[in-house]
């Protein structure tokens, strides 16, 4: 209000410097929350160790997916349809010890009401510390609610990052209403704590990476 009138139909008064800063900072905050469909800014109550984040981002840009010539997640991609928002997400596991050879991996996801989430890619990344001794092969088994999802035998003394594709699991999960996905990881022939990142401060925390498109409630259906 006041000052020289701006454009009458868009009522944009000329901004004094102090007003300009306050107005634009508030506008930026409102725009970002509105377009991310957030009612308020997220409060980070359980921060992930920065070293685990750096490791995960490094793996995703340099990791096996790139060497196999596939565009890895978190790479530039042709993006979603005009009326869908494209998301890529890394979810770090909260680990729960079930027994010396098996660990629970818990992933939490936010679910906006009425949002239509389509999962396009989903991979579980696990770091296995190589056994110090012994020549017996190591077997990794990933299960969900007792149902075996994937099994892999590693050569003796093998270790490092392993990836498991979990597309059907995550698609089914996002069709449901659950917020927590709990996987069971079993490591036969491993030494105790072989999935190195199991402790909270681990730099090699297991993580799930997914690519999705989201259609907001009331958004027109994309013509195929």
């Amino acid at each position, binding site marked *: 209000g006041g000052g020289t009138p701006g*454009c009458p139909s*868009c009522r*944009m008064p000329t901004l004094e410097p102090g007003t300009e800063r306050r107005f634009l900072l508030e506008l*930026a905050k409102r725009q970002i929350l509105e377009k*991310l469909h957030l009612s308020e800014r997220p409060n980070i109550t359980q921060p992930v160790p920065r070293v685990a984040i750096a490791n*995960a981002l490094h793996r995703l840009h340099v990791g096996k997916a790139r060497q196999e010539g596939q565009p890895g997640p978190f790479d530039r991609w042709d993006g979603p349809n005009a009326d869908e*928002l494209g*998301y*890529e997400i890394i979810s770090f596991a909260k680990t729960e010890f079930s027994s010396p050879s098996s660990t629970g991996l818990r992933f*939490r996801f936010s679910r906006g009401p009425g949002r239509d989430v389509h999962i396009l890619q989903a991979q579980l990344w696990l770091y296995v510390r190589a056994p110090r001794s012994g020549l017996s092969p190591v077997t990794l088994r990933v299960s969900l609610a007792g149902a075996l999802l994937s099994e892999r035998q590693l050569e003796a003394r093998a270790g490092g990052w392993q990836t498991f594709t979990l597309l059907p699991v995550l698609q089914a999960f996002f069709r449901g209403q659950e917020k927590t996905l709990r996987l069971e990881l079993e490591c036969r022939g491993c030494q105790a704590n072989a999935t190195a990142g199991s402790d909270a401060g681990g730099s090699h925390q297991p993580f799930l990476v997914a690519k999705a498109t989201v259609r907001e409630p009331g958004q027109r259906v994309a013509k195929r």
Partner: protein
Amino acid sequence: SLRCDQTSNLCCRKDYYVDFRDIGWNDWIIKPEGYQINYCMGQCPPHVASSPGMASSSHTAVLNLIRAHNVQAGGQSCCVPTHRRPLSILYFDRNSNIVKTDIPDMIVDACGCS
């Protein structure tokens, strides 16, 4: 599109950088550190009304002047964004997951008269 400077009060793009530290959001927005929000300001006199804000050719300017002299009263032209770019953002959601997405129409690139 014209960038605002002291010499002209015609419709133009005013650059403004928002640093996420200034709003205390750098703890949950990992990348970028901020972005050019920019905004449009300035007058839209009749002879440039509804021009796209690009430097018009002399032919277009003459046409506009002719139109201006025949312009009917009423109808005010406004200086508004005519082109905006998306903002690629990497942030923590409330479950401490890392999310990457492109937020559409966040950066005002060009202004023009409606």
